[in-house]
């Protein structure tokens, strides 16, 4: 339960920290850290405008996508406290549930009949299809390394295997989860949320026609997603079983650092050319494969 609450707290300031980092990096003061949350409040007050072309799918999709993210959150553990719901292979469920949310976001974009949104939908499904293997290879590596197959078991046994090689996984896991989070949340270098041209957007262009309540749902979903990946990163770099207050403080520190890193990347890095993205994303699977080779060596299977 602690983990669940902490993720909610982290989600509330996460996007604000990104914006603030970017502002400071570009020499501005920037809005307060809770500004994105206030924006949700404003959106919730507003009415809605719907396209005449769109139908029921467009109306239900944001709610379904948000529900998917909230339910995916239930299987994420915190330290050595088990997740609210934990079972063998829950990361398969996690990944497929996020895919369900994406499925609805994509068909909602197609429901508007706009060619821009079709373009965004297509890019979104294409890139998230390519990133999926990296996630599964990494989790397979963890399963092999710890001998467990659920998020809770893997992470609570991650550091007590006693092997010093675990730091290799901390590093690779840290790197891959950050990159996956960037792709899944459509941030740099794959997508640029600041871009003002529909032709070059991915995620932003899919939600061009959403307004009011629906748009608030989409924003909440993307904030939560950041915090979820932040929690995964926390779990691979901080050993389970320390004092709970220390852990909570570390958790929030990790989330802030993660947000600052994203802010810095977005300040100093250019977006990839669109047709270079597949190569970039597939390189993550290659890195995940390296971690698999390492686990084969550690467990004396190779050599």
């Amino acid at each position, binding site marked *: 339960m602690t983990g669940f609450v902490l993720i909610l707290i982290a989600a509330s300031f996460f996007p604000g920290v990104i914006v603030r980092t970017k502002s400071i990096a570009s020499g501005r003061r920037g809005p307060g850290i809770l500004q994105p949350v206030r924006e949700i409040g404003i959106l919730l007050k507003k009415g809605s405008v719907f396209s005449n*072309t769109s139908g029921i799918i467009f109306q239900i999709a944001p709610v379904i996508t948000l529900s998917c993210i909230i339910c995916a959150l*239930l299987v994420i553990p915190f330290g050595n406290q088990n997740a609210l719901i934990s079972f063998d292979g829950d990361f*398969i469920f996690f990944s497929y549930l996020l895919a369900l949310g994406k499925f609805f976001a994509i068909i909602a974009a197609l429901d508007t009949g706009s060619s821009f*949104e079709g373009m965004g939908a297509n890019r979104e499904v294409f890139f998230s299809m390519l990133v999926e*293997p990296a996630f599964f*290879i990494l989790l397979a590596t963890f399963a092999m390394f710890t001998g467990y197959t659920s998020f809770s078991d893997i992470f609570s046994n991650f550091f007590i295997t006693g092997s010093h090689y675990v730091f290799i996984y901390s590093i690779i896991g840290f790197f891959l989860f950050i990159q996956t989070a960037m792709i899944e949340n459509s941030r740099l270098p794959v997508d640029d949320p600041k871009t003002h041209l529909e032709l070059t957007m991915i995620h932003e262009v899919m939600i061009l026609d959403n307004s009011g*309540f629906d748009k608030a749902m989409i924003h909440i979903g993307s904030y939560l997603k950041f915090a979820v990946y932040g929690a995964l990163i926390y779990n691979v770099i901080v050993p389970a079983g320390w004092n709970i207050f220390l852990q909570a403080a570390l958790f929030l520190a990790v989330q802030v650092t993660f947000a600052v890193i994203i802010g810095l990347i977005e300040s100093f890095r250019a977006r990839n050319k669109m047709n270079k993205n597949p190569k970039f994303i597939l390189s993550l699977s290659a890195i995940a494969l390296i971690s698999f080779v390492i686990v*084969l060596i550690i467990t004396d299977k190779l050599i």
Partner: protein
Amino acid sequence: MLSSILFPVILTLTFLLFIIPKRFKYAYALAILVCGVALTSAWSYVVLSGGTGTLEIPLLPWVMKNGLILKIDMLSAFFIAVVNFTVLTGFLYARGYLRPYYSTKNSLRFSIHYLAYLWLYLSMILVVVIRDGLPFLIVWEIMALSSFLLVIFDAEDTSILKTGISYLIQMHVGMFFILIAFLIAGRETGQMGFDALNTYFSRNSSLLLFILFFSGFGIKAGFIPLHTWLPQAHPAAPSHVSGVMSGVMIKMGIYGILRVLMSVQDNLLPIGIIILAVSLVSGILGVMMAIVQHDLKRLLAYHSIENIGIIGIGIGLGTIGLATDNTILSLLGFSGGLLHVLNHSLFKSLLFFNAGSVYQITHTRNIEHLGGLMKKMPYTASLFLIGSLAICGLPPFNGFISEYLIYTGMFKSLSAANLNQSILILGSVVGLTLIGGLAIFCFTKAFGIVFLGEPRSEEAKVAGDVGGDMIYPQYFIIGFIAMIGLLPALIVKPVFSIVSQSFGIPDTTALAVSSLKNLSQISIISGIFVVLVLVLLVYRHFHLKSRPVTYGPTWGCGYTAPSPDMQYTATSYAYNYNHLAKPVIQTKKIMRDIGEDEIFPALRKFESHSDDFFKKYLIDKPVDLISGLLKRIAVMQTGLIQHYILYAFVYMLLVFLLTYFNLI
């Protein structure tokens, strides 16, 4: 004892279809079908609830001594249940689907169609309960023939007839492999049939015979590269038939492979690796080729290949598990594969039925000509959406459960696996992940382009939904899909016992209990998900009620005169994918380039085609080669009687000379 009489009676009664008046033919056929389903479901129930043993039913023991004996074990019972459900819903759906044909086709055509449908059903039942070689081959042949008759229902269209004949030929190639395999085993043991395989495999190496069986059954199942009939025959057949063929008939190939596997005793590891490799290729290439299709039913047909691949991955892993005494992998692999047989029969028939409804209303299967049907055909669209979600393996639908079983089997075996097994398992994980991602790509395209946005043609603009009699049979399927998705433990439990019985997997109780516990956790979280969605939707409803809601055009980036032609098309949706998949897909573009002197380019046409690589090089090229050769030989066919007499003389002379020199 009752069954021994009833079953032959049902078989005989089917022929009365010819003398029933046209008006009552459907009702009569339905009555017979229901009797058949009731009887066979009873067999299936007895065996499955009994838990052990084989039900043996001699057919008409008073008339024939040593006659045919039907043997129903748990595997057969499972397949009977799957067949019964899909065939019955398919026939209920057929009532509305066939109605437009009543005015154009005569009574005889309908008799033949219904008879073929009934016999396809009965032959599938017989395939899974007959163990003797010769009767098995006969019913296998009846299955091919009756499905051939069903495919060519619309034979006024010559291309459909041609497709049907090509289908028939390929089925016989498959049958040839099975026949050879049975003969080899029969010569060794003096007895043809599945029961003799045990004896054969205990004495001989299994690899060659298994590959023969796998090729024969694989053609029916549609493993790549034996799949070439499938994308042709499914679009040509009427939709209820495509649903049944894709939903259950191709699974007879899977049944055959499982039945043979049950007897195999050695070489399990290479056999498992062969199945796994072929299945991975089928799964990935099947869905890759599906994405570039423009014909809705052909797209679904390629997805059948993909799903056969997933089933095969489960079976292959299960076999590897048997070979390495890995209980986890064998139980979860086989169970995942077997459950996927049931799951695929549900959502694939659902998708084919709805593709048929779209075809009936709009008279086109070309995705590029459709669009906006969600508003015109809300029921069909919603059913298609549920089918799409289920086939992509997304929770909380049934496709997820079978894929989850296969995945957990793999992940749990990883830590104890040696180097080669780890690499095999990781390869399968990546393969299955890719299949999942590509399937989502394909079905967002299929659903989005066909049902969402603005209509792209006049036919799509004036469409209305199909009648209720084509919708309601599909509610049964939806119910089943939701039940397996939300309460998986109910159905997985019997599947576990079928698998552990059929393949003799020891010590499965503890594993089964823990797996069922995991599945109940999935039920809980899926339940939370459904409730959360409903609560949020209700809240949204009241939230919007109290705020201004306005409607306007879609944001066009400042452009004020959009037309439906400007929407994203299926081709453009697949464009970047096509770029990446170029080596496999080989899309050909046909377009005249714009010349330098053309200041005002005139009207132009653009076409793109994606050939099936395997069909081109395995079927088309060799057939062209042979027919070219035969044409050259046909020079001898002059039509002049003098020449033919000359040929006869030359032949006699040849025989004489060869005999004279002791050469023959």
